[in-house]
């Protein structure tokens, strides 16, 4: 009897979860109609074609929107295309294009609010204002999506993946380009951001604020207007990310502001105007990062305490470090500096003479930015040398006592 009931229950579930097919020649021709007909657990299969629809609203229905052969939903530059407030839903395989711009409302290709346990994957978003706009939601996964747009200025453009008040989110393998901020987080907790590529955005590749306990790894950020900015967050971990080619008057590989207790490990900063710009950040461990051919590898601007730099590679930067105060409580240890000219008599791999990463010229440029025109001139080399021999202007204890003789990474 028991088994019979179980079988019956299972069977009834099977019946409940039906599939609704949408296509131009089907009985159901619009996605909106399909959504209104669907029940919990249903799948809506959208076949190839162009659907000109906006405001597809899914409320409290755990349904799965599945696109077959890339159906296109054209928002015709009006409003948000899909709005969801539901648990256990998924949207995959769709191509959403043409979301309208607005100065007062945040129109998005997919807006998710107050939802839990959802998956958004394999979607392509083009010409959008906001791409994915996710608010007050938890346990979501955003996987393998492509978001692109043609943002022109900051005022009339939106963000690719925008999250607000979320937790336990996973953002993986997405490609975001041509928006204002590629990935934007505000008040997001316990989330993982990995393997994404964010490029050619007019402001930041990644931008987050007030987002504690997040992990970022293996992401690539390049050619963004101002690089990556992270602010006012605690306990974040950044590993194996690549920040490169952020050249410009106010560009950074990574801008850190008011970040506490973070770990920055194994990242690569290549050819940025400023590799990492650090403001008011304390207790951050920088380990095994690579700084290659940046203008400034590191720029400290005040209020930074107890940061530890260990086993980083500083390779061919115009300036390794710029520091604007006489006080220092940051520690540099066992880093490799390509400008190091010391020797290692006992052959233990550690240079016998300490290295001073702050050159006099970088101190001068800090005070008078125009002096930068004298970069690499003979006179500057001479004053740098004299400062190296007898430091007067740079903090006494700002040294790497044990510089490495060989690179950490090969």
């Amino acid at each position, binding site marked *: 009897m028991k088994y019979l009931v179980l079988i019956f229950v299972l069977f009834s579930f099977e019946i409940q979860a039906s599939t609704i097919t949408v296509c131009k020649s089907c009985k159901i021709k619009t996605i909106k109609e399909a959504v209104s007909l669907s029940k919990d657990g249903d799948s809506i299969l959208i076949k190839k074609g162009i659907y000109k629809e906006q405001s597809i609203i899914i409320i409290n229905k755990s349904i799965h929107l599945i696109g077959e052969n890339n159906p296109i939903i054209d928002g015709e530059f009006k409003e948000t295309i899909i709005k969801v407030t539901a648990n256990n839903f998924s949207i995959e395989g769709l191509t959403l294009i043409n979301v309208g711009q607005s100065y007062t409302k945040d129109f998005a290709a997919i807006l998710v609010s107050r939802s839990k346990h959802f998956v958004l994957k394999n979607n392509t978003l083009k010409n959008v204002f906001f791409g994915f706009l996710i608010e007050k939601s938890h346990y979501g996964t955003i996987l393998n999506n492509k978001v692109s747009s043609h943002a022109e200025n900051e005022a009339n453009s939106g963000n690719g993946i925008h999250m607000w008040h979320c937790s336990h989110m996973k953002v993986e393998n997405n490609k975001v380009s041509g928006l204002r901020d590629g990935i934007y987080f505000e008040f997001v907790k316990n989330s993982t951001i990995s393997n994404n590529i964010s490029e050619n955005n007019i402001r930041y590749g990644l931008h987050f604020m007030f987002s504690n306990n997040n992990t970022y790894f293996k992401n690539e950020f390049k050619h963004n207007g101002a690089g990556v900015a992270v602010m006012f967050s605690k306990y974040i971990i950044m590993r194996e990310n690549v920040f490169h080619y952020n*050249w*410009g*008057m106010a*560009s950074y590989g990574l801008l850190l502001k008011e970040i506490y207790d973070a770990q920055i490990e194994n990242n690569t900063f290549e*050819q940025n*105007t400023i590799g990492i710009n650090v403001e008011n950040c304390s207790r951050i461990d920088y380990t095994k990062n690579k700084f290659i*051919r940046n*203008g400034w590898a590191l720029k400290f601007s005040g209020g930074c305490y107890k940061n530890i730099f260990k086993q980083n590679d500083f390779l*061919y930067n*115009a300036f390794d470090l710029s520091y604007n105060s006489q006080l220092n409580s940051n520690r540099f240890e066992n880093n490799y500096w390509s400008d190091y000219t010391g020797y290692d008599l006992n052959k233990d791999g550690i240079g016998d003479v300490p290295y001073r990463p702050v050159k006099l010229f970088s101190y*001068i440029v800090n*005070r*008078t*930015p*125009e*002096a*930068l*025109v*004298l*970069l*690499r*001139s*003979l*006179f*500057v080399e*001479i004053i740098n040398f004299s400062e190296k021999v007898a430091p007067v202007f740079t903090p006494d204890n700002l040294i790497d006592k044990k510089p490495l003789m060989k690179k950490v990474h090969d």
Partner: protein
Amino acid sequence: MLKILKYSFFDLMRSRWSYVYFIFYLALGFVLLFLNNDLNKAVITLMNIIIVLTPLIGTIFGVMYYYNSKEFTELLLAQPIKRNTIFMGQYVGIALSLTLSLVLGLGIPFVLYGLFRSTAIFDFSLLLVVGSFLNFIFVALSYNIALSTDNKIKGFGYAILMWLFLAVIYDGIFLISLLLFNDYPLDKFSLIATMLNPIDLSRILILLKLDISALLGYTGAVFRSFFGTSLGMVVSLLLLSLWVILPVFRMNRKLRKKDF
């Protein structure tokens, strides 16, 4: 003039110093490329050497050649040849032979290491162009000094002083004035001050072609909008040519009145 040019040129080409100079650049090129195979990085290192060394060598060679061949020059002057033909021939001869040493000395190792297949070819050719300009400029300047001073030691002293001034002291004064007038807008000033010194101008020209150009943009829109464009490039090259033309012009004027 061509005959005299040819004579000075081959005279210098046969001389030991030309070979030393040529071999120095050859060795430098090979060692640099041997130490790091990256052409781009080698170009940066070369720039540091070229903007200091080329002017120095040009200056010394110019003065030395003038004083050494003074007797022969006086002999030539006794012939029915125009004065400026003789000196222009000598001048072009020296500058050309130095340039040849530079171009061949650096060119051979770079070509062997695959310059034509590299993206650095434009930077490298700019480096050679700038190096050649510096040769012509400093040989002209040193010839001017030598023509104005009959005393050999004094002439050498002035020539070295001129090099020291343009390569080091000028930048020192420039930097100090930047620091002193910190409160004023300095963009235009630094732009003009850079352009007035051929060594600084060459340095900036090469730096701009390397990735550091964006770094310069930091100092202000003036620099970026000027040096960043092809107009800036043209103006800079024109200024370098002016640095050749003006000393040569003065040389010719000086010649006319000089009593040998």
